[in-house]
């Protein structure tokens, strides 16, 4: 690839996935924890192929090149080389380390031939009763491309009739059945199972009476996910999104996974029906779809094979049982998830929904949880006649289907639904509750870095900011008025929106630190983000570094900035932390001559976020909240257990405690801190009693 001042985005992402895989390689971690990390690398790669490789293949086909850096063909070749290496590592880890370790602990993924006759009989019954009725064979010919659904396990069978003529049949394995078929085992406490594709393969004969299945091979195709609605022409975005979802299942193949042992003729047929190029094929020495190993990692029991649970703690800022509104009225509330519970955010919506003083609730939903309590509350509120406005982002990739369903439910309840904004993905995390209090209007706002998703809020590190400051409320109203098309986007008092303001403001903030450094002042930038790719921002950071600004970046995933470059970035330190919780919070610090400017943000420093998405950056002005965020930012740079330092070639080097240096694991420290704070609060309550009083008499 040509020499560039930036690290290639795709390779940088693959290095991040390598860092996740490195966690699975650690033999000091419990085995199911390691299996979970391996599954994550699998699902990460699935998405990477769908989106990034898909996009590059489209670019290649259309003849469009990348600006400056390597062209799509070069990038695709580099990606393949790196992925082959990664896949090799994944399977070596699974086969040589994890499977034996699991067996040692009584978890036995077993081949059918290793089962007893009794166990095989049991499985035969399971197949006949539960699986057989769901299978639909699909005959294919060697010279024909078929509509193969993406990311599904499919069993290819060579079937031979009495005359000896072979034909080929595909058996898509229903997703609803799960990957693991349990087998009764005499060993106490053990868990034995076979993989569903093995069971189907063993009984495939039963689907073809009078014929023989002479060979089988499981395969999995990944489809191009970079298909979007042509929004400008979309009259009914919801309708068109449904079409896209269908199209995405059957779009071009960007990756074809099949076992190494796949017979040649079957491999040829599979390649043909998937219309896959040779460069798209990955031959795997083990079970496909590593992402589905998550099912095993999360199966009930075996808690001793997992890391100690770190349950979310209640925030000491909020009295249990007290109204969330009165808590916010006492001052801004900052929550650090998942160490602190997401419950107050859910309660904000739930309390608002059941509150007679609530006039309106407005919210952006990007990725929601299954059975989301927040959506349930919004539905209740709308049914009660509260004005509920929800922007449901249908373009939240891979969550479109769920978002569509819930949007329709909300609409039926009477909520005003907006399906995003034309041409822009709405990624801001904001919720506004308008209440009447003592004859006046009062607005409560939640601004966050993470989605309104109860499930991910237990796994992702994020920041929530709850406030009833009038200027934040006013900005929130302006924001929703603009989103719903009632008003143009006006200038905000406090919040900084993308794509209109944020990038300019960030460049100004960086330039201001640069200027201060040039004038001999102390200057410092600390940013915790998930991805850094925007070239203008990177150039500004290079310039700042040259001027002497101390730049500390904590970038979880893609980082196109080249650290450690003597000419450009000598004073830039880049770390990445991969631990049990996915690092997701975006926190920014600018020294600003000793009067720090601190922000939380929904946006990464990527061109797509800053220029093509609706995002919000929130300045934090409450001194205590500001101090806490600075402490959080700084703590990451002390981590010498889970942190890696990024190197100029895009790879990373894991940090370790230096001689005499105490070990420090930042996520552990945050959890301990949250637990300690919650305990202290409990202790306080136990020593000073607060009686429950009867509710005040309603006023006449």
């Amino acid at each position: 690839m040509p020499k560039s001042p930036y690290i290639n985005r795709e390779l940088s992402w693959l290095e991040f996935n390598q860092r996740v895989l490195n966690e699975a390689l650690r033999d000091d971690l419990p085995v199911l924890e390691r299996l979970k990390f391996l599954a994550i690398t699998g699902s990460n790669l699935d998405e990477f192929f769908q989106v990034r490789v898909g996009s590059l293949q489209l670019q290649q086909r259309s003849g469009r090149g990348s600006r400056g850096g390597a062209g799509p063909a070069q990038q695709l070749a580099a990606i393949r080389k790196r992925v082959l290496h990664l896949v090799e590592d994944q399977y070596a880890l699974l086969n040589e380390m994890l499977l034996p370790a699991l067996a040692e602990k009584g978890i036995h993924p077993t081949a059918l031939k290793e089962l007893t006759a009794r166990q095989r009989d049991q499985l035969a019954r399971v197949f006949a009763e539960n699986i057989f009725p769901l299978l639909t064979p699909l005959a294919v010919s060697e010279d024909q491309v078929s509509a193969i659904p993406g990311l599904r396990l499919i069993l290819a069978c060579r079937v031979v009739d009495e005359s000896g003529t072979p034909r080929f049949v595909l058996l898509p394995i229903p997703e609803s059945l799960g990957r693991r078929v349990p087998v009764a085992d005499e060993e106490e406490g053990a868990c034995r199972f076979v993989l569903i594709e093995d069971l189907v393969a063993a009984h495939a004969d039963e689907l073809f009476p009078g014929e023989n299945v002479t060979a089988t091979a499981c395969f999995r195709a990944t489809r191009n996910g970079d298909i979007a609605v042509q929004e400008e022409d979309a009259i009914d975005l919801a309708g068109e999104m449904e079409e896209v979802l269908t199209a995405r299942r059957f779009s071009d193949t960007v990756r074809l996974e099949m076992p190494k042992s796949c017979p040649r003729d079957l491999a040829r047929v599979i390649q043909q029906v998937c219309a896959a190029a040779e460069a798209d094929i990955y031959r795997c020495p083990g079970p496909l779809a590593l992402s589905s190993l998550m099912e095993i990692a999360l199966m009930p029991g075996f808690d001793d094979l997992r890391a100690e649970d770190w349950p979310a703690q209640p925030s000491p800022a909020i009295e249990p049982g007290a109204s969330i509104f009165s808590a916010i009225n006492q001052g801004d509330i900052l929550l650090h998830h998942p160490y602190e519970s997401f419950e107050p955010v859910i309660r904000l919506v739930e309390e608002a929904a059941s509150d007679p003083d609530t006039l309106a609730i407005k919210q952006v939903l990007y990725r929601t949880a299954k059975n989301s309590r927040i959506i349930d509350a919004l539905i209740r509120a709308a049914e009660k006649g509260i004005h509920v406005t929800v922007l449901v982002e249908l373009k939240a990739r891979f969550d479109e289907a769920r978002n569509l369903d819930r949007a329709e439910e909300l609409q039926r309840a009477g909520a005003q639904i907006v399906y995003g904004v034309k041409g822009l993905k709405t990624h801001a995390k904001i919720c506004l509750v308008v209440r009447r209090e003592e004859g006046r209007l009062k607005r409560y706002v939640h601004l966050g870095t993470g989605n309104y998703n109860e499930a991910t809020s237990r796994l992702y590190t994020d920041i929530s900011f709850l406030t009833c400051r009038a200027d934040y409320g006013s900005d929130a109203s302006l924001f929703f008025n603009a989103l719903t098309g009632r008003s143009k986007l006006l200038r905000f008092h406090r919040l900084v929106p993308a794509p209109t303001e944020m990038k300019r403001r960030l460049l100004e903030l960086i330039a201001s630190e640069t200027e201060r450094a040039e004038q001999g002042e102390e200057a410092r930038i600390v940013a915790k983000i998930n991805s850094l790719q925007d070239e203008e921002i990177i150039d500004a950071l290079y310039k700042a570094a040259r001027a002497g600004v101390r730049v500390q970046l904590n970038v979880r995933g893609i980082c196109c900035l080249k650290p450690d470059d003597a000419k450009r970035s000598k004073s830039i330190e880049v770390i990445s932390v991969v631990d049990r919780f996915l690092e997701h919070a975006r926190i920014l610090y600018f020294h600003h001559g000793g009067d720090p400017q601190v922000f939380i943000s929904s946006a990464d420093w990527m061109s797509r976020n800053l220029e093509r998405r609706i995002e919000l950056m929130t300045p934090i002005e409450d001194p205590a909240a500001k101090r806490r965020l600075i402490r959080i930012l700084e703590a990451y740079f002390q981590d010498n257990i889970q942190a890696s330092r990024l190197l100029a070639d895009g790879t990373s080097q894991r940090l370790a405690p230096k001689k005499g240096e105490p070990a420090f694991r930042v996520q552990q420290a945050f959890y301990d801190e949250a637990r300690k704070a919650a305990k202290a609060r409990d202790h306080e309550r136990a020593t000073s009693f607060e009686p429950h009083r009867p509710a005040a008499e309603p006023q006449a």
Partner: protein
Amino acid sequence: MLPQALGEEGGPAPGDQVSKLKTAMLKTAMHIGASSVSMLVCECEGSGAPVVIEFLEQPAPLARDIFRHGKVTAATTERIVAIILGFQETLRELGIGTRQTTRSVATNILGEAENHEVFLNRVRVACGLEMETLDDGEMTRLIYLKTRRRLDDMPAMRQRTTLVVHVGPGNTRALLFNKGSISRYTSYRLGAHRTRVALEGGHAEGAAMLRLIREHASGNLTQMAFDYRDVKIQELVILGYELQLAAPFFSKAGSECQVKTLREIVTSSADLDENQMVRRFQLDYHTADALLPALEINLAIAELFGLKHVRVPASPYEQGLLQDLLVSHELTRSLEEEVVRSAKILAARYQSDPKHGEHVAAMCAELFDAMADVHRLDAHDALLLRVAAIVHECGTFISPRAHHKHSQYIILNSEIFGLGHADVTIIGLLARYHRHSGPKPDHPDYSELTTGERLRVCKLASLLRVADALERTHDRRVRAIRVERQGHQLHIRLKGVADAAVERLAMRSKGDLFESVFGLEIILHEEA
């Protein structure tokens, strides 16, 4: 226009949520402007500053339609209706009846659209809103209010001779402030949108476009130079929708903007296409269309007076305008004084005896207050009466014969700062009826009034006639009056008069209207 009460015609529309709030605390102003429709909701408590609850604004090309086609097109009408319906959704969310706006006004340039009544009807039918069209007088009042605040913020400016210029969509207004008070007011048919549309089709770009704008504006600029030829202008404050939206991109909030900087901005902006203008100044397309003419006209004015710097208010124009709309109909004391000052300037210009006019005005005020519970007129009517008393004799400049008709003509064709056309019409009629015939249904102007307005004219004219009768000798013989009502009689005690024969004689010819309007017999008493 006063706030409409619930249950009246302007009350909540069927289906509106029952108001959850003490609605007296919320005030709502809606404005159909030249290139946008906006709405402001404020919470007001006591005498404290209003707190802005909501501000919404959406672009709509009204000015472009009016100046290009002479009417509002159907597409723009429907766009504006849709915007207002969206705003009404927000009002519902706040628990406010959708028709319960405190003030709903449309830009004064709407009057130039041949179908303005059809347009207002459509808004009334679709949205249930009665929109009033802003008149020149109120526009001037609004500019005054804006400027007043700015002068209050910057005491140093109050000591200087400051010209405040507002380049609007169709007209430019200039207010000259001397030591904090208005000393001159002028307006010109020169506006940002009017200029933009006039130059359409010329396909000029860059410097050529700037030349065209200057040429288009030159007549008005020459007139402005003439109007202020005798004044050394020390400060220039420039106001305007487009200008104030773009100002943050070239001027630091609240500080001076160098004319040199303004010139650079104008020159560099002239080379941009509309998309680049939109991106550079973060404007909508309609506003971006009018920005270059607005900038160039303001620059030309600054250069006209040889200034090195100008001042642009830091606050957003539209939001300030809506806030002022909520208070401008309740004229502030200082604004009233400015109106009276302007009336006195008019009277002096036509050599009307100032002492006579002011004395009549003082007696009018006594009568007005004494009859308050009978005439039920408001403070604004009191102001119109005061102004009419000051200028009622200006027609003598043409000829003492039929001077009441000359007065009406002069008043109708003059500017009185802070008063709109409707107010000026009433003042003209009051001057017309201060002597000789009282109002008759076939009199021009009077016949065009509504019944309510005719009644106002009759009441006010009757008071003016009585006061003028008491100042028959033009020498302030009646120093002051004391007024008392007893049954069907109004007793007026004349201080300083030993023999009121002259006044009684005058009252015989001028008291008729009063007696017929109020059913009271006037009895004069001497109080030497």
